[in-house]
C-alpha cells in the first residue's frame, strides 16, 4: 500500500499546534473513549454522567437500547463509546426530537407490559430481544407495531451516528480518514483490476 498513515496528533505535535478540542464539561465517557488511554498527559477521570434531557429511568433505557444495537462483543461497542451520552446530549439540544424519543420510550414500556407484563428494563435479555427483533428486522415486522418500528429506526440512527463518530467507532472500522500520506494512496491489486481474485477477507 502506498504511503504510511501518520496519526494526525503526531503531525500536530510536529507542527507545534494544537487543535482546539471541544471542552464540553458534561462528558465522562467521551473523555474516556476519545483520549489516548494510559498515554495522555491529561488523564480524564471517568465520572458519573448526569443526563441533560432524559430522566434517570429513561436514560437507563437509552443505555440499554444503544448497547443492544451496537453491542460490546469481540470489539468495544456503544457502552465503551459513550453512545447513550451522545444521544442524551444531542436530544437535549434538539427540541424537535424530544417528543419522538420520549413517546417512543413510553410506547416501548407499554408494549413490553402488553407482551410480558413488565417494563422493558425489567425483562430478561431474551425477552428484550424478542420485543425488539420485530421492530428492527424488516423480515420480522408485525402489524400494529409501526410506532415502535419508527422509534427503533430513530434511536438506531442516533446510536450508529454516535458510535461511528467516536474514536472507538473509528478504530472499529480501521477508519483511514484524516491521516496523512506522502503520495496519493494507490490500489494494491493492480494485477487484478476487476478485483475478482482478492485474498479472502480476514474474519
Amino acid at each position, binding site marked *: *500500500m*502506498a*504511503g504510511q498513515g501518520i496519526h494526525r496528533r503526531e*503531525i*500536530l505535535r510536529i507542527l507545534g499546534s494544537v*487543535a*482546539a*478540542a*471541544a471542552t464540553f464539561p458534561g462528558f465522562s465517557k467521551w473523555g474516556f473513549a*476519545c483520549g489516548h488511554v494510559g498515554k495522555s498527559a491529561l488523564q480524564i477521570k471517568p465520572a458519573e454522567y448526569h443526563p441533560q434531557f432524559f430522566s434517570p429511568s429513561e436514560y437507563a433505557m437509552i443505555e440499554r437500547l444503544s448497547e*443492544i*444495537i*451496537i*453491542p460490546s*462483543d469481540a470489539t468495544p*461497542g456503544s457502552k465503551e463509546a459513550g453512545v447513550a451520552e451522545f444521544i442524551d446530549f*444531542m436530544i437535549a*439540544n*434538539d427540541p424537535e426530537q424530544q417528543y419522538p424519543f420520549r413517546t417512543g420510550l413510553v410506547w416501548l414500556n407499554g408494549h413490553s407490559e402488553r407482551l410480558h407484563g413488565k417494563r422493558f428494563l425489567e425483562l430478561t435479555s431474551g425477552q428484550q*430481544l424478542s420485543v425488539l427483533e420485530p421492530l*428492527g*428486522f*424488516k*423480515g420480522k415486522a408485525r402489524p400494529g407495531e409501526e410506532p415502535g418500528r419508527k422509534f427503533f429506526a430513530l434511536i*438506531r*440512527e442516533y446510536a*450508529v*451516528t*454516535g458510535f*461511528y*463518530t*467516536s474514536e472507538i467507532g*473509528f478504530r*472499529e*472500522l*480501521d*477508519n*483511514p*480518514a*484524516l*491521516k*496523512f*500520506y*506522502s*503520495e*496519493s*494512496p*494507490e*490500489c*494494491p*491489486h*493492480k494485477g487484478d*483490476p*476487476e*478485483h*475478482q481474485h*482478492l485474498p*479472502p*477477507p*480476514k474474519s
Partner: protein
Amino acid sequence: MAKQIYDVIVIGTGAGGGMAIKTLCEAGLKVCALNAGRRLDPGKDFRFHRMPWDMKFRGLGDPKGESFGYMDNEYTKAAWDHEIPFTVAPGTKWFWPRCSAVGGKTNFWGRSSARFGDIDFKAASLDGYDVDWPLTYADIDPFYTRVEKMIGVASTVQNRPSNPDGTYLPPFNFRCLDYILEAGCKKVGVPYLPDRCAQLTQPHEGHPACHYCGECTTGCDVGAFFSSPYFLLPQAEATKSLELRTNALAKNVLVDENGQAAGVAYIDRNTKQEVEVYGRAVVVAAGCVESSRIMLNSKSRHWPNGIANSSGQLGRNLCDHLYGESARGYLPQLLGQSSFPDHVADSTIAWMPRWQNLNHAHEEDFIRGYSVYPDGGCSEFPWFAHDLDGFGTLFKREIKRRYPTPVTFGIQAPTLRSDKNYMDLDPEVKDPYGIPVARMHFEWDENTLKMWEHSKQVCAEVLKAAGGELEGSGDGPEIPGWSLHETGTCRMGNDPKNFVTNRFGQAHEVPNLYVCDASVFLNCTDKTTTISILAFTLRTSERMIESFRRGDHKAA
C-alpha cells in the same frame, strides 16, 4: 483634502476578484478591493484535522442551528455568511450557501478543473439552441494554460472530444474502486478517467504537495489546492498596490455625470456606515447573482433599471448545474477487505467526462451533455449503515464488512438558458443593511431532466457491468443552487441589445465597468466553473491593463 482615487475598485476576492486583483496589482495599478466578509484564520475557521469527537456536536452541528449544506458545517460554520438573506419566487426552490469571507468559496471548492471547449462555445451552431459564445477556444486556450501553470491541476492528457487537454501535474493514483468501475465503464462503452483536480500531487510554484487527509472542502490548512488567499492575494499584497477592505459589503456602483463608473458605495459591516470609494474603473466579481444584485441596485438617473442594463438582460438567463445521485450501490468484490484510504480528495479523483452527443448534436433525446463524478469506498462516516437491516453483533459486523464497498455516481448536468430562470430584486425584502435582496426564479428544464433520467440508466449499467450491486438512486435531483455553479445573469455577447457585457466581460454601455465571475458565461456547460472564471478573468484583466495604457480609463 482631495478625495483619493484608485485605479480600480474590485468587488470580491474569490476566483474572479482574486485573479483580477493579482493581475492588476502586478501591472502596477492601484487597487482597492472590497470584501463583504472577514479574513479567515485556517487554524480556527477550517477543519484543521479536527476529528468528530473534538467537536461539541461531532461535526454534525448544533441541531437547533441552521445549516446550508455539506461545506457549511460545524467545522467551518463561522466562515459562511448567514446574515444576508435571499428570497425565492413562488414555486422556486433554491439552496444557496454563501461564503463572503476573503477568498470566498475558493476556500472550500470541489477543485474539478476541466477546460471549456468549442463544443461548448459553439453549441448553438451545433444544435440550434440559444446563441454561440462571442469567443472561440483559440481565444481562451492560452489563458487556461497560464492558469493551470499558476494553480496546478492533476490529470492526464485524455483526447476527449468534449474536453480540451491542458498541462497537468501527475494524476491521483486510482483506488481499488476506480479500477473496478473503470472495467465496468469499458464494458458499457463510457469513459472513466482521472478527473482534472486542482490539488497538488507534487510541490508546485512554492506551494506544498497535498497530504491527502481528505478534508479539502472544509479548508486546506497548508494551501495544497488552489484558493485565492493562498495563490493570488499574497502576490497582490506583495506589490504594495493593494488595499483590501474587509467587512465591506458592496451596495452599488457609483456613477459620474456621464453615467460611467466612478466608484463603489459599500456598507462597513462593523460600523454599519455607508462608505464611498472612487476609482477609474470598477470590477464586479462578487459571484454570479450577487454581482447582478449589486448592478441592479446601482440605479441612477442614467440607469433607472440598474447600471449598464438598457438591454434588460441583467439578472436574466440564470443557469445552474443539476446535481444528484444517479446511482448508488456497492462492490461485492471488496466485502470484508481491509479498509483503504479512499477518501483522500474529498470529492474528485475520477470522472466520467461527457460522452453524449459527441459525434452528432442530436444522438440522444436531449441536446448538449453531462458528466458524472463516481466516488465511494471507505468514507469518514459509514452512511450506508442507515440503510442496512437489523441490529446487534451481526449488524455491527455487516457495517465493517461493507465499509470498503459503497459507490455512488453524481451527475453534473447543465440547464439550458430559459426565460423562466432569472434573478431580480425583491421589491419588499431588504437585508439588515437596507439593501434589496436577490429573488430567485428557477426550475429544472425538460432537457436537463432527460439527462438525469439518462444518467440513472447508464450509471446502473456501469455498476452492474463492474460486478456491483445496485441499491438505488436519489429520489430526485438536489435542490437548484446546491452545486454552487450558477452562471449567467450578466452574459457576454457582441450585441449590446441582448447582452450586458462584451466578449471581454466589459459592460457594453459602461466601458470602465468589468464583470469577472461566472455571470458572464452563456451557460454552465457540463464542466465546473472556477478554472474558467480564472482564465476569463485573466483575459479581462489584461484587456483592462491595455485600456489603462491607452488612457481609456480616466479619473472622474
